[in-house]
């Protein structure tokens, strides 16, 4: 074995701060490099499923319903399923990916032994998933364009909306993975929380036709606000969209802080 020269000692460069960029970069680089080995599967699952919903509902219901709220049904669903794509490409990777990384692969043990704190780890993971959601979220919209959705300048806002929503759902997913004792328990959350939220979000049908309790439920559903914001970005923004945006941001911030709190409890014993 060739003996490398005696290493020069590295001196410390001041006391690291909270949420410092070097730590975030380190975690992000790990994710980006890993993405190279699984991006096909990830892109496939994150985009094909919403696209199937879009086509199934678009043609299925589209033959029964011609217009919803003044929009062609394909336009209505094409913009709505953007939020579905964001949800699927953020909450599930966050739940399962995080759990696998800290339970089975022990990846987080290695990262936290480096100069990275739980706060930075969770933040970087959520940012990374959000960035992916920002891209994957646009796929149903592009597919809908092939089926007659007209381009508009507002569509350029959609990746940013998808990013903000994706950050919230990623944080929510990390929170769930930190709280759950076993990966089997994830199905409780999927069935009782994610599926209802996914259905009562104004994606496939407007919530205005629902009973009042369901309308109230929809209004506290972050996904509903994402659907509305995307739709308005494409067809014309109104003042009410500030409320939708605000709701999504608050949801993201709360889920982010809670995810950090619970993850710290889980990782630091």
């Amino acid at each position, binding site marked *: *074995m060739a003996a490398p020269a005696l*290493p*020069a000692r590295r001196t410390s460069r001041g006391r*690291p701060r909270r949420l410092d960029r070097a730590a975030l970069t380190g975690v992000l680089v790990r994710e980006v*490099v890993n993405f190279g080995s699984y991006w096909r599967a990830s892109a496939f699952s994150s985009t094909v499923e919403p696209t199937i919903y879009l086509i199934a509902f678009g043609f299925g219901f589209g033959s029964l319903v011609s217009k919803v709220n003044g929009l062609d049904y394909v336009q209505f669903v094409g913009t709505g399923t953007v939020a579905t794509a964001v949800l699927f490409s953020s909450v599930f990777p966050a739940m399962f990916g995080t759990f696998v990384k800290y339970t089975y692969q022990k*990846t987080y043990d*290695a990262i936290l032994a480096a*100069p*990275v704190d739980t706060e930075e780890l969770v933040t970087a993971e959520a940012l990374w998933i959000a960035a992916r959601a920002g891209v994957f979220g646009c796929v149903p919209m592009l597919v809908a364009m092939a089926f007659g959705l007209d381009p508009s300048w507002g569509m350029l806002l959609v990746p940013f909306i998808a990013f903000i929503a994706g950050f919230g759902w990623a944080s929510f997913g990390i929170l769930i993975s930190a709280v759950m004792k076993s990966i089997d328990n994830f199905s409780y959350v999927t069935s009782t929380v994610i599926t209802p939220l996914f259905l009562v979000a104004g994606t496939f049908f407007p919530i205005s036709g629902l009973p009042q309790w369901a309308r109230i439920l929809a209004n506290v559903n972050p996904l509903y606000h994402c659907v509305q914001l995307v739709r308005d970005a494409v067809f014309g923004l109104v003042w009410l969209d500030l409320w939708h945006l605000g709701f999504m941001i608050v949801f993201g911030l709360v889920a982010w802080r809670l995810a950090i709190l619970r993850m710290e409890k889980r990782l630091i014993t």
Partner: protein
Amino acid sequence: MPDPSPAIRLRGVVKRYGDVTAVDHLDLTVPDGTCVGLLGPNGAGKSTTIRMLTAQAIADEGEIQVLGHTLPQDSKAARAEMGVVPQLDNLDVTLTVEQNLLVFSYLYRIPRAERKAAIERALDIANLRDRRGSRVDELSGGMRRRLLIARALVHQPRLVLLDEPTVGLDPQVRQELWALIDRLRTEGTSILMSTHYIEEAERLADTVVVVSNGQAVAVGRPSDLVAEHAGAEALEVYGPPARLREVEEVAQVRGWPTRRTGTSVTILRAEDLDGDAPEGERRVANLEDVFVLLTGEEVA
């Protein structure tokens, strides 16, 4: 100027998990530039101690200083200057050897201009230069271990924590890793190594700390510990179980210190025995005798 403060200093450290006290008023010092072996049976608190040094476990009582930083509040600064080799392999298995090192060159904040050289140096340490493009899941167990160690050294840390570095590996691979660790020690890196292999501690550690039930029960150079606790020679008496019981009874009456191994009774301090000692094989006392005497447990 050498740093006069020790690389690691623990004072009265206590760590409880519910009703279980994993670490119980542990004092531990790793002088700068030396290798300290934490020797103890499974469940003695070795891994918990190592986790506390990276603030992945927080002590309930006591003081911990690592490289002059007080834990847990300054642990991030301490972690930037040390490398950790975990007991469980947590390499990214779908990445190549080189990609694994690249990721850690970022996590350990190596400046861009030095990154390439750091990765090359780590590849040399792991002796994996010609496997740089191989995915980790294509490597042998020994290669993966070497990579795991090299990954912890990519930023040239002043201190390295090794948690059971050779557990579950075959003897050839183990010796290869010992050579690697020994070179690190020769180059002046401070090392804390937990192990339950006697030979590993005997060969590599300047100082051995024998831990049992979360406490340090003996501290010293391996040879001093043997001389102090087990004497110079041991007498191994073999025979069927009935014969072994008989020997133990005689030893108890005569006040000879003994320990049981699976197939024999070992009478320690055999150099003090008179002519009436039972028939057996004499051998030089070793650290395993000390270990069993102090912790009451057999080892691999």
